[in-house]
């Protein structure tokens, strides 16, 4: 409790207090309406948090001595929201110079000072899947982070033990960037498929070369290893099933294309991101075991995103596809609970099904469902406390807790929550030209000027 208080103080003072990774807290949340997501809604329930984990859930639990108590009477407690598609808290988004850049990783350029982490906390979001952009067919590796805002060591953001994931992108974005931009394959959707198959085949040959070397080394100590290739190492890890694919996609045909390619290469796990036409191929997705992460109702920002429906999430869910709703935006991530509620209006999902879209389902898609995504004993104490039912339009997030530590508190929220400021830039220029344009989006890092002159068309994720 003392540590939790200390941290809260540091946050309030706006100081960069050096607290280290895996900081865990103790808390007692009294008498809230607990939305467990996996085990129904529990009225007048207490939650005991010990060392960052949920230790007990029940009515009239005993309050341990000296623990910090949050009175949640009249409030709603839900699992911390998980955003399966985000570009916050990183310094780079796209390495847009090559159609395949599997070797780069946004995890190498985490930025714990990003104020957008705090803003996400203010919307009840505790975990973000921070992704490489969609400029390349095979982009960089992503990072699953916990919103431990206040820490300044980038490593403290990493969700330790979360599986590795990588970004793929189909369709117009990679074709525009590489095909039209540089006259480099892919210039068409066929080219996109070719790039993926070609990359996997190279990775297979690479694995074979190293296996041959390992064999030969046993016989011959003077054997020379084959060339080392960081990019093919990562692609080989995809083939081995060690890295989960998260693929930016829109059209049904390209979704089926990737399923065929993955089947040919024996890859079993894939999550389609955006996937506005996924509802057309829901049975095929379910049969493959593919998962889908969609927008609630966002479309028509470019040609391939016209055939869309707000029923997408509900249709997928009813077909047995594990579905989540993501933000892909440092603004939308602050009200993902509204986005989830739309699936009740459009498609008639139950409250638990709707909440699952932003909690346990994205957790499954990131391979972290045993740690987060629901309120269960033994899971990480990542919680959001709302003033009303979070699927209500009147709900306001009051407190957000990560690993048992209150990282956002609406009652203690001064104007300046930045962890650091530029010591030299005139403060009046804090908002500068260009800061809000194509920032932290799928196409950040792409030379937009060259790009826009070619297409004269607005570019979105």
């Amino acid at each position, binding site marked *: 409790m003392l540590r939790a208080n200390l941290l809260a103080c540091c946050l*309030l*003072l*706006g100081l*960069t207090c*050096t607290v*280290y990774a895996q900081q865990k807290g103790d808390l007692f949340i009294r008498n809230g309406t607990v939305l467990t997501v996996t085990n129904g809604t529990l009225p007048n329930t207490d939650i005991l948090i010990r060392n960052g984990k949920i230790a007990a859930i029940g009515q009239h639990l005993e309050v341990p001595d000296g623990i910090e108590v949050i009175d949640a009477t009249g409030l709603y407690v839900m699992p911390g929201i998980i955003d399966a598609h985000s570009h916050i808290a990183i*310094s*780079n988004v*796209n*390495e*847009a*110079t*090559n*159609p395949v*850049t599997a*070797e*780069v*990783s*946004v995890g*190498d*350029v985490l*930025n714990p*000072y990003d104020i957008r982490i705090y803003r996400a906390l203010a919307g009840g979001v505790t975990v973000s899947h921070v992704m490489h952009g969609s400029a390349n067919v095979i982009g*960089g590796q992503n990072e699953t982070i916990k919103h431990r805002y206040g820490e*300044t*060591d*980038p*490593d403290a953001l990493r969700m330790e033990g979360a599986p590795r994931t990588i970004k793929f992108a189909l369709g117009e974005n990679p074709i525009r960037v590489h095909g039209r931009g*540089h006259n*480099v394959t892919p210039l068409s959707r066929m080219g996109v498929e070719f790039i993926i198959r070609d990359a996997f085949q190279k990775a297979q040959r690479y694995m074979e070369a190293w296996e041959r070397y390992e064999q030969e080394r046993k016989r011959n100590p*003077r054997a*020379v*290893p084959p*060339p*080392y*290739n*960081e*990019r093919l190492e990562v692609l080989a890890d995809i083939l081995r099933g060690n890295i989960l694919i998260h693929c930016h996609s829109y059209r049904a045909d390209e979704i089926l294309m990737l399923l065929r390619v993955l089947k040919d290469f024996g890859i079993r796990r894939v999550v389609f991101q955006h996937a506005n036409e996924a509802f057309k191929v829901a049975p095929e997705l379910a049969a493959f075991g593919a998962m889908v992460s969609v927008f609630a109702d966002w479309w028509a920002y470019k040609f391939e995103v016209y055939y869309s429906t707000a029923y997408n999430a509900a249709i997928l869910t009813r077909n047995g596809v594990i579905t989540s709703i993501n933000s892909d935006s440092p603004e939308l991530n602050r009200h993902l609970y509204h986005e989830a509620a739309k699936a009740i209006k459009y498609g008639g999902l139950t409250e638990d099904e709707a909440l699952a879209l932003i909690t346990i389902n994205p957790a499954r898609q990131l391979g972290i469902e045993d740690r987060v995504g629901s309120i269960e004993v033994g899971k990480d104490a990542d919680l959001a406390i709302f003033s009303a039912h979070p699927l209500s339009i009147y709900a306001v997030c009051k407190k957000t807790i990560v690993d048992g530590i209150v990282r956002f508190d609406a009652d203690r*929220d*001064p*104007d*300046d929550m930045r962890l*650091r*400021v*530029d*010591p*030299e*830039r*005139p*403060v*009046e220029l*804090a908002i*500068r*030209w*260009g800061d809000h344009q194509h920032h932290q989006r799928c196409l950040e*890092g792409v*030379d937009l*000027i060259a790009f826009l002159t070619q297409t004269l068309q607005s570019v979105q994720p």
Partner: protein
Amino acid sequence: MQLRRFFWTGLFLVALPYNVEAQQRPQQGATPDLRDVPVATRTYAITNARIVVAPGQEIPRGTVVLRNGLIEAVGPDVSVPTDAWVLEGDSLVVYAGFIDGLSHVGVPAPRRKENQEPARRRVENPGSPPPELAGLTPDRDVRTLLKADDPAIAKLRRIGFTMAHVVPRGRMLPGQGALIFLRGQTPEEMVYQGQVSLFAQLEPAQGVYPATDMAVLARFRQLYREATRRHQHATLYAANPQGLQPPAYDPVHAAFFPVLEGRLPVFFYVEEVLDIHRVLALHRQLNFPLRLAGLSGSFDALEQLKASNIPLFLTLDLPEAPRDTIRATQKLSDDSLAARHNTYLHVSSYQDVSAEIENLKARQAKERIKYYETAARMHAAGLRFGFSTRDADPDKILNNLRTMIKYGLPQEAALAALTIDAARLLGIDKAAGTIEAGKLANLVVTTGPLFEEKTRIRYVFVAGERFEIKEPARPSRRDEGEPMPARAEGTWSCTVDSPEGSIDTTLRITGQSGTLSSSAIPRELFLENLRLEADQLSFSVTTDTYGRVDARLTLRGDTAEGTIDVPGVGVLPIHCTRTSGPER
């Protein structure tokens, strides 16, 4: 002939104590070329001076004798050789010469070529550009790039620097560094030791791979691991070529071989704290011999730096309050400004902008103080460090050192970082860093304690060569009382120091309007918000690529200096000279 030479030497000797300029390397043209003539003496004695042998170790009244570039003797009872030029040091203090841990001194920025931009666009496949465009020139040796006439050399020397670890300019892997003396007529004379470092920075290429920090890190891993394999291959082949393919050669990977053998450290320049974390993570992954320089903002990574236990070279640059703050607060100190900060401020309305702006300025002052305190905190954390002048304005360095001391850095620690600690971390402490017999004759002679504001540096000796430091010429007062008001009219030829090299820019100002043209932008731009207040000229231009670019210049007669703020690129220095007008 003999006679004549003798005559010159005699003249020289007579002239010496009185005319320092004559002793210094003569200018070509103005005076006869004397390089053929033997120097009068390479023996100097500084007598009866206070000698700070090493930080915390003083001879209150002693003599230092320098001969042939080395310190011959130092002590309270050293006798003065008969052939010595004697400096009576009764009121003077002698320190060891300062050592710059990393900079580009002697390596002037290349002038930007007119057609560089289109060439970059013509790269056939931006995913695999030629190494040079990718910023990969680790095989380049800075010794081939040195220019003895770089004015930066004298600028650093006049504040006491005698040696520097210099590295090439560039992007990710610009090349190999060398230790140089801050003196010499030719690059060869400047070099003390070559191939002392492999220089690296998180500096992406432009528009080609690696175009981001994350790709620079991935590229470094790829290069290092593949170099390891190639090195293994080369070692096997060298031991016995039979039955083995000959190893392929390429200069980029080969440049890593001495690093792999532990003979060459990688010097990474890290501009801010995120860079520190990123490079330390890379270091943990690959475990190469590492040195870090720059380190601005390291107050947020002290624990990690301590755990990594690597040599550090802290930048001598410190942040300065923005002009709006200076103007609005009448030069209020950062301490008093910071005291006004209210961490709990929660303005009631978005219209209450002024309260928030005032608070933001106070917050910013608090943040600046963290930078002032960084050196002290590094010292307190037990980190050993030297300094880097790379990002510092030489005219501000001594003042910045005083600021670091004011904010808690012990004076002895500051002196150690400038001298013996830098020498130790660079591996030259047997040859430099203290005033001991047998070491290089690198000395700084001052009128008083080094870090006192009124103290002046009188002489600097670099490897036994004497330089008298004169006060910078004060701007001459005009005879008729009031100075002439500054005028902005005319054509100004300007140079902008950008990360890409120098950019030529021309300003044309007539009356209340003007235009700007530059090699970096395709068309002439109109100057907006053109304003001249006293000698402060400010304007902005709207560019297609960067948006609004603000410029501020201080006019001095027909020259002007200042900065331009290019969004997304940074605040860049600009120097201008008036080439025509105003009508007088």
